[in-house]
């Protein structure tokens, strides 16, 4: 028995249609996109463009502004380093993943930018106020997750984006935990959306996206072959070639396209509602376990992720014992130094993150197993 409840890391299993798309891409799209005029290259180029179109339509963007990357971390690094290359002030939220916090902190440590961290409260008003009060004349960009990866908290990002728009500040959104769960459109005030292709979008690992509205030029992180202006030693300025050097993961892009089509077929609100039901079920079962702490606050909104602890039991220990029973859960600090500092966790948490293919039965099975494990001598004796 294997029950994957670590879908916030990467969704598994992938939908059959995604697996089929990957197999088809392996068989049919073996050329290099945008390079060469032979049938294999032309067929592959057309396929990759169709993937861009699907992504663009899903997020309300232009196909030429959809950049395939290897993951969300890469996209965030491109956005943060590319936008802040000329220096200035940047604000990140207090629940950012290290994929945003580390590149921002590195730029600040090297004296290239100044950095502020805005706390995320349970209520929207003080969170929006915190961002507003940190905005300055030289603030160039704000990075805010659309749903935190530790607790799933959804900050009031539309309000923050509106504040940015009023002040001509670039709003960079980390959609890794939100895309495929929340209905997100660039017109919501997002200038640059960075996301994973392999989480809520159900593509394969090694896929990510940077989607821009084109308003703020992004200095490329890397340069190289783009299939265009080949005789020039200068990187093309035109999107998307300026940001997509080298051969993209075409098979991965086709998996993301199939993943998005899967979401469209089932409906984003239905998927969210299904996963929320599983979370609610699990939380209600946790409440019957003595010492259970669920990291959720009144007034806050959450994506379908539940972070919890049981008393003083080290989360890694409990997760390891549950893993032996076939439950896949992520314990520890979840690559999120800021969020765990804000939560004040000592050893981190255990994160429960269902996806489309989980059921409420999985939540029950896990809760029963937690009770069973806690009744064992090891836990009775030590905790």
């Amino acid at each position, binding site marked *: 028995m294997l029950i994957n409840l670590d879908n916030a890391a990467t969704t598994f299993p992938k939908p059959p249609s995604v697996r089929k798309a990957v197999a088809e891409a392996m068989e049919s799209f073996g050329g290099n*996109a945008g390079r060469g005029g032979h049938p294999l290259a032309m067929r592959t180029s057309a396929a990759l463009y169709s993937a861009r179109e699907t992504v663009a339509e899903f997020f309300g963007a232009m196909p030429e502004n959809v950049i395939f990357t290897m993951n969300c971390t890469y996209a965030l690094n491109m956005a943060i380093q590319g936008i802040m290359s000329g220096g200035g002030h940047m604000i990140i939220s207090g629940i950012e993943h290290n994929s945003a916090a580390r590149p921002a902190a590195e730029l600040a440590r090297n004296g290239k930018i100044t950095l502020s961290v805005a706390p995320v409260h349970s209520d929207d008003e003080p969170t929006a106020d915190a961002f507003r009060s940190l905005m300055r004349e030289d603030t160039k960009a704000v990075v805010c997750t659309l749903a935190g990866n530790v607790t799933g908290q959804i900050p009031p990002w539309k309000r923050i984006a509106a504040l940015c728009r009023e002040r001509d500040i670039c709003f960079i959104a980390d959609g890794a935990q939100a895309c495929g769960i929340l209905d997100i459109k660039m017109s919501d005030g997002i200038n640059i959306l960075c996301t994973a292709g392999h989480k809520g979008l159900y593509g394969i690992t090694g896929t990510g996206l940077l989607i821009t509205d084109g308003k703020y030029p992004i200095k490329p992180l890397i340069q190289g072959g783009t*299939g265009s202006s080949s005789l020039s030693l200068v990187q093309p300025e035109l999107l998307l070639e300026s940001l997509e050097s080298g051969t993209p993961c075409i098979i991965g892009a086709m998996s993301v396209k199939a993943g998005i089509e899967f979401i469209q077929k089932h409906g984003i609100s239905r998927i969210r509602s299904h996963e929320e039901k599983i979370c609610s079920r699990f939380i209600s079962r946790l409440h019957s376990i003595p010492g259970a702490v669920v990291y959720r606050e009144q007034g806050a909104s959450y994506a379908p992720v539940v972070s919890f602890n049981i008393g003083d039991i080290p989360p890694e220990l409990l997760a390891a014992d549950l893993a032996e029973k076939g439950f896949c859960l992520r314990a520890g600090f979840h690559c999120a130094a800021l969020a765990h500092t804000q939560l004040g966790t000592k050893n981190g948490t255990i994160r429960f993150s269902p996806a489309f293919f989980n059921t409420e039965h999985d939540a029950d099975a896990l809760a029963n197993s937690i009770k069973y494990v806690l009744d064992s001598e090891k836990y009775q004796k030590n905790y």
Partner: protein
Amino acid sequence: MTVCIVEMPSYTYAVKGEKLLSSRGYPCKIKRNTNASPGSCGYSLFIYRDCEKAAGILAQYRVPYTNISYGGG
């Protein structure tokens, strides 16, 4: 008969241009251009009628191109 060849800066814009023009009744096709200028990506839009109007549509929708040559065969 090919009326004109529009050299494109990227494959992405070539497809964008092709879709834009085809949907408006201008027959065209993406082909690899053997005489592409250095600034091009090597892909061109071969437009088969009303080339000036078609080029105007590309400009109107901000689809960039690097060169346009008339009178292909």
